[in-house]
């Protein structure tokens, strides 16, 4: 480690504020303002991780969100631990703890490095080719792959941080606060647009804010000084909101964008409690100005991935912004002018440049001459052909490029260096633009994709639009903003810009080597270890579409989504295949631009708010009385009420028996209830149910079955006629919302002439069902004023009544086969009426039962549950419910489908009862039903849909659907299980009280 890597003259670093942090268990120091990457570099550390496939040593490569290598694990072993964090984006704070990932046992000695030696047998598609065959071996391979693969560790305990979501509406959103973004924000805000400016960094100004070059000036001021004044000015604008540390993750259609604002990640851990960590901003902007800048391209040559090899612009930023030298003996390797800016920054600080290797034969801009004047050796028309050094680069070899750039010629020269800056020109950051649906065009001169067709009210300015020179950037930003905002941009009338760079470039996607390609490792995707060789192999094997090549080689599929190398992959493909750039398409950039944590995505919807649930008005009573709950749709329903040491089976057997022996009570409040009114209400029911409704008398109830237009059973329930033009329909618990939606659909779109109004009243009522031979005695005590005699109040009828002063609706309907009364009362009285029923039933052993007992009791009666015994492939005829399908009605939903050639087939699956030969054997729901286990393949006839042990019949009962089941009564079938075959007899689905005597039984 050397002490002269830090230049304490940067105004962005607070040298009075020393910060200590731990990296791989060693303590280091940096300053406030450092990123983890700049602090590590200042300590002479380049090697920070291992590559994914070959476990090659990798160093910090960039200075921003495009970083492919320096991805680390933050806060080891704490609840805040986070994998895949880019060291180039982490602002250091006192006590920061970070470590390398993807290496074991340590970053300096990594056992997986053996893959590097094995690389000749680890080509592209290796995993697909090898581990997929034979399929049965996958389990064995998987163990080893999982062990050695994977980046980082996920946290093992709950995230202690708070996250939230915010909606933002603005006239203009400016993404990126570089020089174009600052100008755009100022022009928009000053002209009356409500403007939001966001930038992912902790400071404003982009790369221009540390541009102190004498070669690019604005109004005869350094670019950095001029921009500082601009920033000062805009921070006072009322119309402008500025958010730093805010990264736009997604740009959707209609100018809807998602951004992550990071609020506490830069603070010491002990200052984060009770603060919001990230805010997910949901931005709807009328206009969007994208000023996301550009990303410098690496160069693709043999062994271009060693620690100490960085983008040339990153080296410049580490010097100018952080005051950190990446090396003491530098070589720059470029195909364009930008590396000379880096050279000037190095020269100004007195840092040694050993040489500049330039692909171009000619360099003739002012800045290049200035560099040459400083006695820097420039190798023109040369290329780097190899690099040396295991944990850090120490040497390179260079050769002369042939005229056509396809080969290298002459002697090999070796040069020493501890840092190599590479520059392959710039790639506009068009990720967000393409996410929004924008179409790109390819610009031949400098081989870049730039925005072409905008899908919404938006514009790209600055280098993300393909403008690279300062003069060009400013000129074009001004003119296109003027047009876009339809304004007079008088603020910037007199701008004189000097730019010392010219834009010449010698673009060679894959630089030639003196070795054959098979012997080289030229990385295109650093994170996923995809090389140029892999891409060529994919092409040889017949892949053509970029999307296929990408998946086969995994190029661009890392957490960095190939921000550095995607262009080279495209270039190599088109050169190899002899096609034009863009002809194979560009890869699709998908959100998020940079990864989001799960916490950010879910916001406050954690714990009990993760998935909303509904409680009945009687819920608290169930909780108090030890109920277990099950989720039904969004509802929490009482499932069973275990006593003392009862298990579920024991509780359900007891509840089921009590309900038939004396009395049971069920909270049925979750059933969907739809209030139907209007002069055409009866006609409407005629059309939506399979049976007839016109003749139902006021005060009577009827069971109805609803089909889809395809004839399949959709929902069922009892509907009661409350008045001449007034009904209340009940639906299944889970189906309530969909049924209402479906009915509304028909009313609004097919039958607008019907005078019918629907409203959901599910939540208005608590529904308490009291059943069993003693139910009448109990409800008579609760509602003493109502005449419960069978003459006055027969089965399938309804009465208005009062409990005290509170009105209620009582239906005598039954889903258990027992005499049964349903009290519907205003929801807030539900619990007290329930308690009244419990009181009144004390002498009759009234037993609360849950959904499981309800299911058992109805199965004894052969009543179906839509969604359990049916699955949208069964007609009422299949269910042996022909009796409910009206033959007289001209039409109802689904009628025509009941005699399509397919629905009248005799061999459809039909609902039957199943009795096991051994009455103690209970079948598994979902089990397959067959007739012959010897024939191979075994023909599947159907499956078990409901199965219980009936305490009232003292035997196992089941319902199932079986091909041609209707004609199989009494026949033996087989349920093959893992370790035995169970014999069953096909039976009538009604197992209990076939005549329905119990509905009116007198005790």
């Amino acid at each position, binding site marked *: 480690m050397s002490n002269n890597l830090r230049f304490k003259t940067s105004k962005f670093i607070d040298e009075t504020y020393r910060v200590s942090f731990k990296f791989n268990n060693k303590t280091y120091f940096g300053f406030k303002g450092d990123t983890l990457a700049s602090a590590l570099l200042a300590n002479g550390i380049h090697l920070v991780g291992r590559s994914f496939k070959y476990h090659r040593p990798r160093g910090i490569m960039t200075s921003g969100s495009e970083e492919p290598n320096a991805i680390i694990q933050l806060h080891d072993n704490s609840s805040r631990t986070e994998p895949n964090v880019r060291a180039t984006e982490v602002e250091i704070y006192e006590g920061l703890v970070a470590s390398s990932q993807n290496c074991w046992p340590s970053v300096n000695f990594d056992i997986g490095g053996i893959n590097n030696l094995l690389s000749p047998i680890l080509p592209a598609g290796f995993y697909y080719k090898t581990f997929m065959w034979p399929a049965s071996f996958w389990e064995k391979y998987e163990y080893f792959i999982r062990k050695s693969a994977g980046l980082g560790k996920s946290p093992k305990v709950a995230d202690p941080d708070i996250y939230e979501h915010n909606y933002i509406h603005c006239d203009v959103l400016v993404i990126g606060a570089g020089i174009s973004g600052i100008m755009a924000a100022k022009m928009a805000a000053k002209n009356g647009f409500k403007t939001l400016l966001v930038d992912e960094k902790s400071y404003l100004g982009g790369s221009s804010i540390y541009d102190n070059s004498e070669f690019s000036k604005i109004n005869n001021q350094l670019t950095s000084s001029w921009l500082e004044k601009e920033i000062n000015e805009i921070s006072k604008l009322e119309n402008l909101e500025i958010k730093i540390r805010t990264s736009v993750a997604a740009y959707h*259609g209609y100018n809807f964008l998602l951004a992550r604002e990071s609020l506490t990640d830069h603070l010491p851990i002990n200052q984060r409690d009770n603060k919001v960590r990230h805010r997910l901003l949901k931005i709807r902007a009328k206009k969007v100005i994208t000023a996301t800048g550009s990303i410098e391209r690496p160069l693709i040559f043999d062994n271009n991935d060693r620690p100490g090899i960085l983008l040339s612009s990153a080296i410049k930023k580490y010097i100018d912004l952080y005051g950190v030298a990446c090396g003491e003996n530098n070589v720059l390797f470029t195909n364009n002018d930008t590396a000379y800016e880096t050279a000037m920054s190095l020269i100004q600080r007195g840092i040694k440049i050993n040489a500049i290797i330039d692909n171009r034969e000619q360099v003739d801009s002012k800045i290049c001459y200035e560099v040459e004047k400083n006695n820097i050796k420039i190798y023109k028309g040369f290329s780097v052909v190899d690099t040396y050094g295991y944990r850090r680069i120490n040497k390179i070899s260079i050769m002369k490029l042939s005229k056509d750039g396809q080969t290298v010629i002459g002697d090999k020269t070796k040069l020493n260096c501890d840092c190599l800056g590479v520059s392959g020109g710039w790639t506009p950051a068009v990720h967000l633009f393409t996410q929004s649906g924008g179409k790109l065009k390819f610009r031949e001169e400098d081989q870049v994709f730039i925005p072409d067709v905008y899908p919404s009210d938006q514009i790209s300015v600055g280098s993300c639009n393909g403008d690279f020179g300062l003069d060009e950037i400013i000129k074009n930003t001004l003119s296109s903003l003027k047009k876009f905002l339809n304004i007079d941009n008088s603020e910037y009338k007199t701008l004189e810009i000097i730019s010392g760079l010219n834009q010449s470039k010698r673009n060679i996607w894959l630089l030639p080597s003196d070795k054959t390609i098979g012997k080289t490792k030229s990385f295109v995707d650093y994170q996923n270890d995809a090389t140029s060789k892999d891409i060529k192999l994919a092409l040889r094997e017949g892949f053509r579409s970029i999307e296929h090549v990408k998946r086969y080689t995994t190029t661009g599929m890392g957490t960095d989504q190939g921000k550095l190398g995607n262009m080279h992959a495209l270039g190599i493909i088109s050169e190899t295949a002899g096609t034009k750039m863009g002809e194979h398409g560009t890869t699709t950039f998908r959100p998020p631009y940079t990864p989001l944590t799960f916490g950010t995505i879910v916001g406050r919807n954690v714990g009990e708010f993760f998935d909303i649930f509904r409680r009945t008005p009687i819920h608290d009573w169930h909780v108090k009385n030890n109920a277990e709950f099950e989720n039904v749709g969004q509802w929490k329903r009482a499932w069973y009420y275990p006593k003392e040491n009862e298990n579920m089976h024991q509780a359900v057997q007891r509840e089921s028996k009590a309900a038939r022996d004396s009395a049971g009570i069920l909270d049925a409040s979750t059933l969907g209830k739809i209030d139907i009114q209007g002069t055409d209400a009866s006609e409407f029911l005629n059309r939506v149910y399979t049976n007839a409704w016109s003749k139902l008398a006021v005060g009577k109830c009827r069971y109805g079955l609803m089909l889809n*237009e395809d004839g399949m059973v959709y929902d069922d329930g009892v509907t009661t006629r409350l008045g001449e033009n007034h009904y209340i329909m009940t639906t299944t618990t889970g189906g309530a919302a969909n049924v209402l*939606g479906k009915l*509304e659909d028909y009313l609004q*779109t097919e039958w607008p002439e019907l005078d019918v109004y629907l409203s959901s009243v599910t939540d208005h009522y608590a529904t308490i069902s009291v059943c069993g031979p003693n139910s009448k005695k109990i409800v008579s005590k609760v509602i003493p004023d109502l005449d419960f005699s069978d003459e006055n109040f027969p089965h399938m009828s309804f009465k208005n009544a009062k409990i005290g002063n509170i009105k209620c609706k009582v239906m005598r309907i039954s889903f258990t086969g027992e005499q049964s009364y349903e009290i519907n009362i205003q929801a807030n009285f539900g619990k007290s009426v329930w308690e009244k029923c419990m009181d009144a039933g004390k002498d009759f052993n009234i037993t609360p039962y849950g959904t499981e007992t309800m299911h058992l009791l109805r199965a004894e009666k052969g009543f179906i549950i839509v969604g359990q015994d049916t699955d949208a492939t069964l007609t009422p005829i299949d269910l042996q419910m022909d009796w409910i399908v009206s033959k007289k009605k001209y039409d109802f939903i689904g009628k025509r489908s009941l005699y*399509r050639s397919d629905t009248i087939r005799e061999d459809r699956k039909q609902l039957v009862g199943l009795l096991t030969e051994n009455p103690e054997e209970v079948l598994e729901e979902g089990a397959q039903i067959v007739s012959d286990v010897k024939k191979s393949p075994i023909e599947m006839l159907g499956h078990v849909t409901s199965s219980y042990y009936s305490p009232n019949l003292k035997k196992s009962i089941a319902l199932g659907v079986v091909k041609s089941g209707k004609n199989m009564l009494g026949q033996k079938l087989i349920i093959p299980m893992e370790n035995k075959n169970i014999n069953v007899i096909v039976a009538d689905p009604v197992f209990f009280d076939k005549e329905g005597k119990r509905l009116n039984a007198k005790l």
Partner: protein
Amino acid sequence: MFLINCPFCGEREQSEFKAGGEAHIVRPKQPTELSDDEWAEYLFMRKNIKGVQFERWNHIHGCRKWFNMVRDTSNDQIKAVYKMGEKPPVK
């Protein structure tokens, strides 16, 4: 996420709406007169085109009204919204 101009409520987020398939498919008045093929045509056959499509939408978390929309499925541009029973204002 689209912004949808509900003909009854005005501009709202797409998340308030539910798509309901192809528009202008009228339920036959006399289904029993139809052959299996004719009924199947009504029941099952729907267009799924890249380009201008006529669709039904429901403002399910708003006024709950159904309405029609003309949308270019290739770029999600909404060309028009109009009430049930009205003729499409664009082709």
